[in-house]
């Protein structure tokens, strides 16, 4: 076999390769967006952040919004940590096993157990819930914790700036007006089964993600397999030129509620297609 090509054939092959690759990529996009979207969520600035640029990001490169998702932590004491992508209470051993992980107890020897603990992440479909029961539960937890801290502060007289009572009040305010209402509430491999369980397409989006198991060995806690969502794919959504004027002027932090113009500034309708890839279909000022 020898490699001898004329320049004409090389030109044809190169042009065909570029054209075909672009056609396949764009065809996939068209297929993803064809027909009825898999789900359509109305998100606000609470769920969509403008990522802060570092290095060459400052030179431009288009605008993308980061989808800010959360989990309802298994540990209720962590209620104040709103951005925590920690261990969700629903990601237990049974769920991990259903996702294909080996959840047999690790052997006792330290090195061997270290290997078991380092199971690599697996792809899974993750269900994101917008302003549903998970958010309500998170809000209740924060309210309870804040009430306790404020009661303690009232007893001791420590309610000034920097005290736990004052921080609890701020956390509660943030939970009510600024924190994301988008929670990862389930995961699986079958999109149809997940959709049957969560039929409301305006509240539940199915997205692609990665789940990683973790063997919980913290002192005082029961030793068991648990896990966390390592990443949600496509958690950065590109903003087309026609929507930039609505989103770009918004401050990076949500203005405090209660003041004039406070609360989320913009509202963005995001659709998820057949391949669970998102795109922005509308953007406007947020209804306060």
């Amino acid at each position: 076999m020898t490699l001898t090509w004329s320049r004409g054939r090389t030109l044809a092959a190169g042009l065909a390769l570029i054209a075909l690759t672009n056609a396949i990529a764009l065809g996939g996009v068209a297929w993803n967006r064809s027909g009825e979207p898999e789900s359509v969520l109305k998100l606000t600035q609470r769920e969509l952040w403008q990522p802060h640029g570092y290095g060459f990001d400052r030179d431009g490169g288009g605008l993308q919004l980061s989808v800010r998702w959360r989990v309802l932590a298994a540990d209720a004491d962590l209620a104040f940590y709103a951005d925590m992508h920690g261990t969700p209470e629903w990601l237990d051993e049974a769920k991990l096993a259903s996702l294909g992980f080996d959840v047999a107890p690790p052997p006792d020897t330290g090195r061997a157990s270290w290997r078991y603990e380092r199971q690599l992440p697996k792809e899974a479909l993750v269900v994101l819930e917008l302003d549903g029961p998970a958010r309500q539960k998170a809000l209740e937890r924060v309210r309870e914790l804040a009430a306790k801290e404020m009661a303690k502060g009232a007893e001791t007289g420590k309610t000034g700036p920097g005290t736990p009572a004052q921080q609890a009040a701020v956390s509660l305010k943030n939970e009510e007006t600024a924190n994301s209402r988008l929670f990862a509430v389930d995961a699986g491999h079958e999109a149809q089964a997940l959709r049957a369980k969560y039929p409301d397409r305006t509240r539940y989006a199915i997205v692609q993600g990665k789940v990683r198991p973790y063997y919980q060995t913290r002192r005082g806690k029961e030793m068991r397999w648990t896990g966390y969502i390592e990443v949600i794919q496509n958690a950065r959504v590109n903003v087309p030129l026609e929507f930039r004027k609505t989103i770009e002027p918004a401050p990076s932090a949500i203005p405090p509620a209660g003041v004039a113009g406070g609360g989320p500034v913009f509202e963005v309708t995001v659709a998820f297609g057949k391949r669970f890839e998102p795109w922005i279909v509308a953007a406007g000022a947020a209804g306060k």
Partner: protein
Amino acid sequence: MTSNSRTAAQQRADEIRVFEEELAHLEREGIVALTPAQRGAIAAHHRGLLARLARDFDIDRDARAKQLSLGMRIASFLGALALAASVFFLFHQFWDRFSTAAQVVVLAGAALGTFGATLWIQGREASGYFTKLAAMVAFACFVINISLLGQIFNITPSDKALIPWAAFALLLAYTCDLRLLLAAGILCIIAWISARTGTWSGMYWLHFGERPENFFPAAVIMFLVPQVIPHGRFTGFGPIYRVFALLTLFLPMLILANWGQISYLDFEEDGIEGFYQVMGFALSAGAIWLGARRHWGEVVNTGSVFFVIFLYTKFFDWWWDVMPKYLFFLVLGLTAVLLLFIMRRLRAKGLFGGSAR
């Protein structure tokens, strides 16, 4: 002009230069004496031949020109990298001013345009320096093309993108005789095969690097490519395949020899590390032997480097904590001297397939 004929022309020019030097030696030592007419005829023939080769193929006519060529190659390589980076930042800088449709057209147009320009330059330039620049920019444009399409349309990242990138790099490499693009194509293929190997074990493709054994099939395939497909027409292509294959084999093996926990093998960590240490020694020694038998200098060198690294790593494990540092480094130095003696003896005896002296 074809890349093959340019290589042949340069080889002919080098042979003429060596012949002239040797003839001068022989004449000085009185072994041969050409008549002025003979010397003049040979010189005139060589002058004409070199002038024609220089005109047609832009070859280096003497050692000074060759040194200058090396400088030009380095400048061409650095220029290619800088231009590719420039294209990337150009897109980045002005990206947000285009509509989605315009972005798609600009991306595909840039890839198509720079590819066409590369072939156009290649048809008009004998030296290949500007062709290399253009080809690198074309490759960068194509990579940016697919990457930014993914960003614009929020496409899930996929290892499948490595296939057209590899194909494009190899197309440019074989058309324009460019080793840099060949290396880029080989890296894409290695990454893709390793990612696929990783997914067969159930992992997400981007994590293929977390199990170094994923690289071994790619190493074997890359090593076999120049055996199955003759590369005689392309300067240095075979060695590049073999060097990348050996790096793809020995680097993961070196990691596993020191960090057994990340192996697929379900054994005790010490056993895994011991296994890969033995494999590292055996295969690097095998590479030295095979390279010497087949006259593959790059295989001998790569095998030697890794044999020494595996050896020094073991020395470090055994003696770093127990020996005074001066003694430790003395042992390393003496080991290198011993290896030199052994290899010289083997070479002299022709045990590697070379002629005994």
